[in-house]
C-alpha cells in the first residue's frame, strides 16, 4: 500500500503536468481540479500511513544508497507534503477562476504549476544531495516560468533577476555537494551522518556546509540576499505569488535546515550559527520596516515574506550546542512557523489578488472604501495578518511561543527582542492596509465583484492558519514519530 502511495506521490504530478500541457486552458483546469483531488488524497494517505507505522527509506529503482537514490519518508517530510497539497490545491482552485482563460499563453500555467508541485514533493522527500539539486532546479525554473508568464517587461525583469539569483544559489549549493562527495565519497545525507557518528570530523569539510547553506539562503532570500524576492513575488499573478511565498522559498530553507540539523553540530561553529541568526533578525526588522513603507499592496505582502523568512533562520543559533529539549523546542517552533506562514501568506496573497481585482489597482491608497464592497476578502486578509502578528490563538503565536521558550532556555535572550519587534512591526503594516480600506471615499463607487469562490479560498486558508495554534500538539506529534531504520543509510 505504501509503495502505491509513494508511486502516486512521485508519478501523478508529473502525469498531470504532461496531460495539462497537451490540452488548452479550460481542459487543463478540469484535469487539474481532478488531479488536485487525487493528489490531496494520496498525500493524506501517506501522512496517515506514516503517522501509523513510522517513517522509512524508499530506494528508487530498487537501488539502495549510496549507489541509488533513497528518499527519506519521515514525519516532517510527510507533514510538508500534506501542507503542499493543501496550499497548492487552494492556489490551483483560485487560479482556475482568477486567471483569464482567453489569453493563449495561460494554458502553460497548468503544466508549470504541476511541475512546481512535483519538484516540491521531490525536495521534501529527498535524501540525496544531488537529487535535491535537481529538485531545486525543477522548482526554480518552473517558478521563473510562472513569474514570466505573460511576458510584460516588468515581469521579465523580475523573473530574470529571480532566475540569476536562483542559478547562483544552485551553483553554490552544487559546489558544496562536490566538496562533500570528494570528502565522503557518497551523496546520501544519511550516509555522511552515519560515517560521522563514529569518526573524527575530517578537516576542510566546514566550507562545504557553508557553501551549501549560503546558496540555499540566497534562494530563500535571507537578508541581505533578499533583493530579488519582492519584485518577483510582487509582480506575479496572485495565485503564483501565493505559491512562491508560501512554498517555494520554504523548499530551499527546508534543505538548509535539514543539513544544519544533521551536519551542523560536527561541521558548523558557534560564530556561523550566531551570524545566521543575526541576519535572520535583521531580515525581520528590515523586511517589516520596508513593508510598512511600500505603496503597492502586493509589495507590502512580499516584504512581509522577507521578514517572516527571517524568523526561520533563528533555527540555526537555537539548535547549535544547546540541550536536546531546547533544540527540540526550536525545531518545533520553526516547523510551526513554516506551516503557519505558508497558510497565512497564501491566504494574504490570494485575498490581495481579490482586492486588486476589485479595485483595479495595486496601490494601497486605492483601497479606500473597499471595506464596504469586499468585507469578506478584507477579513481573510486580516485573519492571516493575525497569524503573522503572532497573536493567540493563531499558529504564528504557537510558533513564536516555542521560539521564545527555546531562546530563554538556551540563555540567548536577545532573540526575544527580535520576536517582539517583529510582531509589533507586522501589526503596523497590517493595520496600515486596514486603515486605507476603511477610509470613506465618495468619489469611487465602482468596484468589480469577484466571484464568491475566489473569496472563500483565502478565508479557508486564513482560518486554518488561526486554527493551527489549537491543534499544534497533534501536528507536532507526527514529527516526533520513531523512524524505522530499515534502509541502509
Amino acid at each position, binding site marked *: 500500500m505504501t509503495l502505491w502511495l509513494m508511486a502516486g506521490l512521485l508519478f501523478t504530478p508529473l502525469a498531470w503536468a504532461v496531460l495539462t500541457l497537451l490540452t488548452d486552458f479550460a481542459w487543463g483546469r478540469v484535469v487539474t481540479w481532478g488531479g488536485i483531488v487525487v493528489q490531496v488524497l494520496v498525500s493524506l494517505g501517506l501522512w496517515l500511513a506514516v503517522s501509523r507505522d513510522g517513517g522509512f527509506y524508499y530506494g528508487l529503482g530498487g537501488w539502495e544508497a549510496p549507489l541509488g537514490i533513497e528518499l527519506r519518508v519521515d514525519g516532517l517530510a510527510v507533514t510538508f507534503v500534506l501542507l503542499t497539497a493543501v496550499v497548492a490545491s487552494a492556489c490551483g482552485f483560485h487560479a482556475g477562476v482568477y486567471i483569464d482563460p482567453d489569453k493563449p499563453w495561460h494554458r502553460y500555467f497548468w503544466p508549470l504549476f504541476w511541475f512546481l508541485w512535483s519538484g516540491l514533493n521531490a525536495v521534501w522527500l529527498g535524501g540525496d544531495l544531488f537529487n535535491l539539486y535537481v529538485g531545486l532546479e525543477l522548482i526554480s*525554473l518552473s517558478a521563473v516560468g510562472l513569474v*514570466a508568464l505573460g*511576458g510584460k517587461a516588468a515581469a*521579465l525583469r523580475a523573473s530574470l533577476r529571480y532566475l540569476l539569483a536562483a542559478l*547562483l544559489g544552485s*551553483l553554490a549549493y552544487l*559546489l558544496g555537494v562536490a566538496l562533500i*562527495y570528494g570528502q565522503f565519497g557518497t551523496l546520501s545525507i544519511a550516509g555522511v551522518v552515519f560515517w560521522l557518528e563514529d569518526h573524527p570530523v575530517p578537516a576542510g569539510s566546514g566550507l562545504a556546509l557553508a557553501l551549501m547553506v549560503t546558496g540555499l539562503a540566497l534562494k530563500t532570500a535571507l537578508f*541581505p540576499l533578499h533583493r530579488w524576492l519582492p519584485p518577483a513575488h510582487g509582480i506575479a499573478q496572485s495565485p503564483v505569488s501565493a505559491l512562491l511565498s508560501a512554498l517555494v522559498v520554504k523548499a530551499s530553507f527546508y534543505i538548509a535546515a535539514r543539513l544544519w540539523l544533521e551536519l551542523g553540530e560536527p561541521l558548523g561553529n558557534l560564530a556561523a550559527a550566531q551570524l545566521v541568526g543575526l541576519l535572520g533578525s535583521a531580515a525581520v526588522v528590515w523586511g517589516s520596516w520596508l513593508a510598512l513603507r511600500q505603496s503597492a499592496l502586493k509589495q507590502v505582502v512580499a516584504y512581509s515574506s522577507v521578514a517572516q523568512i527571517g524568523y526561520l533562520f533563528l533555527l540555526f543559533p537555537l539548535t547549535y550546542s544547546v540541550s536536546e529539549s531546547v533544540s527540540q523546542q526550536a525545531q518545533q517552533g520553526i516547523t510551526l512557523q513554516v506551516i503557519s506562514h505558508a497558510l497565512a501568506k497564501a491566504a494574504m496573497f490570494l485575498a490581495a489578488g481579490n482586492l486588486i481585482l476589485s479595485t483595479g489597482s495595486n496601490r494601497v491608497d486605492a483601497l479606500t472604501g473597499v471595506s464596504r464592497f469586499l468585507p469578506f476578502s478584507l477579513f481573510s486578509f486580516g485573519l492571516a495578518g493575525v497569524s503573522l502578528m503572532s497573536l493567540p490563538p493563531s499558529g504564528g503565536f504557537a510558533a513564536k511561543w516555542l521560539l521564545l521558550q527555546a531562546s530563554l532556555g538556551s540563555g540567548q535572550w536577545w532573540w526575544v527582542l527580535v520576536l517582539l519587534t517583529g510582531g509589533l512591526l507586522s501589526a503596523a503594516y497590517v493595520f496600515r492596509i486596514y486603515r486605507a480600506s476603511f477610509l470613506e471615499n465618495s468619489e469611487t463607487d465602482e468596484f468589480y465583484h469577484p466571484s464568491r469562490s475566489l473569496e472563500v479560498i483565502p478565508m479557508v486558508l486564513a482560518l486554518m492558519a488561526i486554527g493551527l495554534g489549537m491543534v499544534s500538539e497533534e501536528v507536532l506529534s507526527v514529527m516526533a514519530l520513531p523512524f524505522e531504520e530499515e534502509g541502509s543509510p
Partner: protein
Amino acid sequence: MTAPLLYALAGAILCGIGLFGLLWLSHLLRKLVAFNIMGSGVFLVLVGLPQHQGGQDPVPQALVLTGIVVAIAATALAVVLIRRYYHLSGLTSLTGEPASREGAPE
C-alpha cells in the same frame, strides 16, 4: 599532485572568475556567460576531486552530464527572457531604470 587535482584547483579559480562576472558585470548576456563559466568550474571540482585518488569515477561524470543539461536549459530560457526583455524595454541590464525602491546599496 595529480592531473585531476590540478583540474579541480583550476575549477576553483574558474568558480572565482565566474562569481566575479556574475556579480560585477551588468550586461545580462555577460552574466550568462559568467554563469556558464562558474558552472564549468563547479563541474571540474565535482569530477576532479574524487578522481584524484580513486581513478576514473563514473558517478560524478554522470552527475556532470545531468548538470550540463540543466545548465543549457537554464541558459536557453534566460536567452529567451533576455531577448524579449530587450525587445520590450530596450535595456540589456537590470541596473538601469526603473531604479530600486528601497535605497539599499546595489
